[in-house]
């Protein structure tokens, strides 16, 4: 499944990032590497972007980008 399918409060592990170029690199830099544990903290008031906790940091990503992040529920 992909990250945008998760509901707030749900945790998961990153499997792969199916994106390219700047977005991919930025996500990698932020720690979205294979095996990283992440958690959806909340949606923005209009449901997009979403707020992700990764390595104790909060990162906002748009749903369109979250759709490119393959995850596995834990």
């Amino acid at each position, binding site marked *: 499944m992909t990250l945008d399918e998760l509901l707030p409060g749900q945790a998961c592990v990153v499997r*792969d*990032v199916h994106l390219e*170029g*700047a*977005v*991919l*690199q*930025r*996500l*990698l*830099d*932020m*720690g979205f*590497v*294979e*095996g*990283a544990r992440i958690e959806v*903290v*909340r*949606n*923005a*008031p*209009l*449901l*997009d*972007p979403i*707020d992700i906790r990764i*390595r*104790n*940091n*909060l*990162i*906002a*990503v*748009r749903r369109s*980008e979250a759709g490119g992040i393959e995850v596995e529920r834990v």
Partner: protein
Amino acid sequence: MKQQAREVTVALAGQPNSGKSTVFNMLTGARQHVANYPGVTVEKKWGSFATTTLRVRLVDLPGTYSLTSYTQEERIARDFILTEKPEALVAVVDASNLERSLYLVFQLREMDIPIVLCLNMMDTAKSRGLAIDLEVLEHELDMPVVPTVGKKGLGKRELVHAVERAVGQSPRARRYIRYDAELESFLERLDARLEESRASVDSLPRRWLTVKLMENDEEARKRLVGRHEVAREGNVGDLVEYVDFLRREYIESFKRSPEKSIAAGRYHAAGEIVARAIEGRDFDRRSVTDRIDSIVLQPILAPIILAGILLTFYQATMVYGTVLADRFFPALQEGKEIIAGLFAPTPDLIRSGLLQGLVLDGLVGGVIAILYYVPIFLILFGCIAILEDSGYMPRMAFIMDRILRSFGLHGQSTLPLILGGVVVGGCAVPGVMATRAMKDEKARLITILIMPLMNCLAKIPFYVLIVGLFFSAYQGLVLFGISLFGFFVALLIAKLFSSYLVRGESAPFVMELPAYHVPTIRGVLSRAVERVWLFIRKIVTIVAVVMVGVWFFVTFPGIGFEREMHYDARLAEAEKDLYDTIAPSNRYARYLSGDSLVDLMHYRDGLNEAQRNAGEDAHELKEVERTFSTRNPAFFALANNGVTADGMIDPAAREAASKLKRFERKVRGIKRERRKEIIDASWAGRVGRSLEPVSMWAGFNWRINIAIISSFAAKESLVGTLGTIYSFEEGSQAGTLEQSIRRTESGWTVWHGLAVLVFVALFPPCLATLIMIRHETQSTGWMIFATIYPIVTGFILACLVFQLGPLLI
């Protein structure tokens, strides 16, 4: 060992929110400079400090999460390290966020510069229950580690010592992190090939180059090519092809791209080191931030809180800022008067000297009009700094992104647009400046381009004037409507620009929501002052120059000798009239002619001025009267409505004074007519007239044209120029400007008013904004575009209103 202190360069690197600037402040104190990196809008900050043996120039690199070639900041940071080769690096890391921080440190390490690790925000780490074993960390990283608390200045001495030692460090085998074995074998193959072709025998650090090439880094590839061409050796195509070949092979064998393995490798290494060096569980991490977020980002509360914060912000800047600005304005006025005092009073009652006009009305007037805004900007930039430092700024973008994105903008456009004056009146200059925080270049450019359409403060008086003329019954409604109109046009245009005009890929929206911090007073103040100073430096001189140009434009070529003679004759007539009507027996009669009359008028101006300055202060008023009456008792009685210094009414003086008043009114009338004629005959007037055939489509006659043209340098002057054109003078008995306009333009309909409102709402930006646009886009082309498209759009819409409006009703 007594020797000359050696001069060295040290660079400060670190991720955003690592407290890098507090460390920079701690090390350099007040010795700081800010400029821009050439060609870009990224701020370059540097300062200096001295140790016993060194004089250190400390350069504050832009805060970056990584060192890729995808963002301007990252390119600047790494290019600085590669080309300037600082003697050492201070890597500032957030002790409570070590894992992600090390991700950057590993990359710095690959650039072969001695590093001192500044473990900042130790207090936060401790309060979160993290015990960091410094020795283990030093050993694992193979670099000196200094714990600091930048905002309290703790650890400064140790850090300076460590820098001193690091600078003296001789090159030795560096311990780079190891990526996974498969990747390492590929790196080795690439390294061997580079060695063979001697491509990086020059200054580029080899390990860095191999890793970056495997990462498919655009700039690293270019450097490879560039260097080869210069050296005229080897086959460039071969080398780049080899990199591509290796990457392809890697992807085919392991079903993933090397950059993913590289990032994973760095995080893996970071995780291992953190596991060994840190004890204690991060039990308290973010709980405060979480609690604040659960309120601030709660779906229903979020927009309300956002609106509340923006309203407070608006109140502080535009309302209190204006109060503050008004308080300082007399000081500026006084400055102008001091300069005015440098000019000898002219012996002419209807003209002032040309040089005086140039300096006072052109130069000084222009500068003062800009300086007036300094207190407002100071508060404004202070508020922005608070939003930035507290951590709320990215959350604002988080809340607003969904809406703004659909118009080709970005969540981060919120603040610039608010500053520019979405609803009630702001200022495009700080609006444009605030776009600097935006990382998405495309959205940033669009935000800058629509800024001129926002409702700048200086448009308000004009709105009020026109609304008063035509829509006095619905004043509030029309004002509100016109600002909404501007905003909607702006959104539409943003959408158009993003679809058809502005190219380029949107940057990824991957934005950190940092932990909340209480901003420090020092941090907020210094940033506010820094930015105001930048503004003054950039703007004031250019505005002064253009104001002089505008002054020439509305003053020359003048009205010709004959007309001047005509005004002289009328003045002479008025003077004769004055003399004739006064009884020869009146002992004040002799003061009312020739040079004495001129002196008297100047004296009167001086007295009025002094009285105005004294204001309500009774004591000071007495003092003023005493000074002036001792200077010339007869003049005093005449200027003071026939009341002498001791408070007695002198009937002769009173009679003369009333005649004098009538004379003065006449002189004012002559002056006014002459000034109007000068504007009419000026180049601005000619252009205004020659544009009339076109502008009449929107219902603008030449008078409106002139006002619009001459207010180009600063819109504040729009109403003032109209005043001159419609021969209106404040305090005169001609009534209000509204009445003057109504008298002159009796044929005007509501549609005239609406068309001009629409045009002004989309008015081209003032000069200061244009300079800022030039500065922030680094492009004269965009600046010109931002000048022209609002004029065209505004004019077309005004024409539509004027032509179609009457048909509808």
